[in-house]
């Protein structure tokens, strides 16, 4: 008994001692906190302001380190970076991190005294988080002086770079702009027999759908599970944000929204009749999808279309080059349908953000690279990369662009209808609750209205907690 007590006391003392001296704090805090000191481990390096190498040498290295996810556009960026090195002598290293771990790694890296990267290419949703926590350098003035801002598509600037949205403050510069669109089986649509059958059944010709209702009819028509043929696949992945990206454009078309972007009210927007109708409609559309399609992220959607079984696929434009390779002439593209006068496409893509936790000299070098990338020369090189998509207005309007690939016209048009999810710092919680509730409605565990009502309450709680909703 005495031994046990002694053990407990010893453990407690040890815990308190190490806890007090061992937990590093990154910035001085106003509230009472233990003194920040180097970790309790015995022989730590003393007070090095920059981890790794001495501060001066790091500042002078002629290089720019960029972090992006591991996928083909990163390879493209590296190629463009190599061109930059040829012209200026500054080496560009694009460090690629596997997608499943990308967000985690970036977040953890920002927790150190200095980040291991100069530029991080982040999702648009991270903007608020990066801006308010002082991770991203404020690019407002620099952007206006060094880059032809008028050459950048306004919606791309607004959603990829601006925080708060509409304020004119920029914390990122566009790198890869992306949107959601549809691919379809051109050969099926142009088959005379199919056209005759469709006209007979629906009383109108078989054409590319312009409205969501038309899309629904087409999905129903092409849905033949016995022949292993399906009508459509939508983005419904639950792992990250696919479901949100897939649902929100339907919701916006039906008149709903995530909330009032100025007052942060959610009630009446998210749980409006329009939103519920949109969710019910999405559920109906998924009835014409392959089995298991209620949890398809972009790669599963891609597979469902590339294996020849699905008539229409909702996916990001980034993947269209590879679809063209696989399907060749059989594939066509169209933009997001509308409901009534409203047509919206989910914003994709990422922007360059410069880390504030690096020496000034490195920030300048990073700015140099970004300025060159956004110039006409840089953008020309970028669109020649397999998965590079530009937001340069002149290029988008040019004839050369329109005929370069079969999906470019749809891409250019889609950019005019972009909209995004919340980009405020608490977007993470907003997104995870949204995925959960919408998934429940899609899986049939509750009605769309119920799911949205529950979600509205949760979102309002989160926004209140975060100080956005009064």
């Amino acid at each position, binding site marked *: 008994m005495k031994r046990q007590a002694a053990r407990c006391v010893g453990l407690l003392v040890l815990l308190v001692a*190490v806890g007090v001296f*061992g937990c590093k704090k990154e910035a001085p805090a106003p509230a009472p906190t233990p003194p920040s000191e180097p970790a309790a481990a015995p022989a730590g390096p003393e007070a090095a302001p920059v981890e790794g190498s001495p501060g001066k040498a790091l500042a002078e290295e002629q290089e720019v380190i960029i972090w992006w996810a591991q996928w083909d556009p990163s390879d493209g960026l590296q190629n463009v970076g190599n061109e930059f090195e040829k012209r200026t002598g500054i080496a560009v290293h694009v460090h690629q991190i596997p997608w499943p771990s990308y967000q985690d790694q970036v977040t953890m890296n920002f927790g150190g005294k200095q980040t291991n990267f100069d530029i991080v290419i982040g999702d648009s949703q991270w903007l608020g988080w990066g801006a308010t926590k002082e991770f991203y350098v404020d690019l407002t003035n620099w952007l206006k002086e060094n880059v032809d801002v008028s050459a950048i598509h306004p919606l791309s600037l607004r959603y990829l770079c601006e925080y708060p949205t509409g304020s004119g403050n920029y914390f990122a510069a566009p790198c890869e702009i992306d949107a959601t669109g549809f691919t379809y089986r051109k050969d099926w649509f142009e088959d005379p027999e199919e056209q005759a059958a469709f006209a007979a059944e629906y009383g109108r010709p078989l054409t590319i759908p312009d409205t969501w209702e038309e899309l629904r009819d087409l999905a129903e028509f092409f849905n033949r599970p016995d022949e292993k043929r399906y009508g459509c696949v939508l983005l419904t992945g639950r792992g990250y944000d696919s479901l949100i990206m897939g649902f929100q454009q339907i919701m916006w078309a039906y008149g709903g929204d995530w909330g009032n972007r100025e007052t942060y009210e959610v009630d009446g927007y998210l749980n409006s009749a329009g939103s519920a109708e949109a969710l019910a409609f999405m559920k109906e559309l998924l009835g014409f999808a392959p089995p298991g399609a209620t949890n398809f992220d972009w790669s599963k959607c891609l597979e469902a279309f590339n294996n020849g079984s699905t008539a229409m696929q909702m996916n990001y434009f980034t993947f269209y080059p590879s679809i063209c390779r696989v399907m060749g002439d059989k594939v066509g593209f169209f933009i997001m349908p509308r409901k009534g006068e409203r047509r919206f496409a989910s914003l994709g893509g990422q922007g360059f953000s410069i880390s504030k936790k690096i020496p000034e000299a490195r920030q300048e070098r990073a700015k140099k690279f970004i300025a060159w990338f956004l110039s006409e020369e840089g953008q020309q090189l970028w669109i020649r990369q397999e998965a590079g998509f530009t937001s340069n207005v002149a290029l988008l309007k040019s004839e050369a662009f329109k005929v370069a690939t079969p999906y470019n016209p749809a891409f250019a048009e889609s950019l005019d209808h972009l909209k995004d999810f919340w980009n405020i710092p608490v977007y993470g919680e907003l997104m*995870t609750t949204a995925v959960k509730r919408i998934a429940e409605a899609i899986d049939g565990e509750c009605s769309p209205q119920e799911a949205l009502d529950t979600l509205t309450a949760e979102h309002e709680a989160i926004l209140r907690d975060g100080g956005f909703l009064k």
Partner: protein
Amino acid sequence: MGKSRFLKYGFVAPVLVVLIALNVFPLCYNVVLGFSNAELSGGPWQFVGARNYARIFSQPQYVAAIRLTAVFVFCAVTAELLLGFALAMGLRGRFPARPVVLTILLVPMMLSPAVMGLYWHMILNGHYGVLNQVIALAHLPQPQWLTDPSLKLASILLIDIWMWTPFMMLIALAGLNAIPQYVYEAAAIDRARPWTVFRRITLPMCAPLLVLAVLLRTTDALKQFDLVMAITGANDSATQTLSALLYQTTFRTYKVGLGAAYACVVLVVVIALASVFVRYIDHIQQRQGKQA
């Protein structure tokens, strides 16, 4: 006397020092941060008392996660134990190609859970997955392994059992092989029946190792995350185990303070469970006279 004392510490000290050095800081980190509102990306934080713990215990999400984890661990470990032991019994003694059979049986355990989750996704997928196609050949209705809420946990359970039964099997085999031959010979002389031999000799003699295996497997199953992440993602209410909830909290909503509180709760649960097992192992070993 002094030399022998130094000697005995010499055997155990290196391991203890190393483990203390590496484990104390993370433990304190989690305990201290459990009382704070820290965020994953650093920045200033404050102590918020027991608010995190209050949140944990009042959230239905947490209770659901505990229940799910308990169900999962219990089913997985029981199935693995029974199957593994049965296999070990089947594989004792010599027969041709024994090493080959053993190695093949061990392969599922050697595969990385993270990669296997991805790969099983391909097999179980309702669209082109091979399992459903085989089931369709038998004209049976095709279960949606990955999207049917009642089947998702079963899928993960199946994969876990497939992967870890070899673990139990190997330990059971080692334990069975350790039983000396003369004991069986003595039993044969006494004309004991097979069931009695099993119940009175085989089972008790490999019990310590089996219980140890169960203990190790339980502590691992409680941390099960890779499979959940790969099969359904960490945000799915049908499969959100404690580890998945921890991941969601720390890495998706960045609330590392709340996540640390979860980790501490998990730790307490595991410590409690493990103590029970360890005491049981001690008990068995004492009965067998292995301890002084």
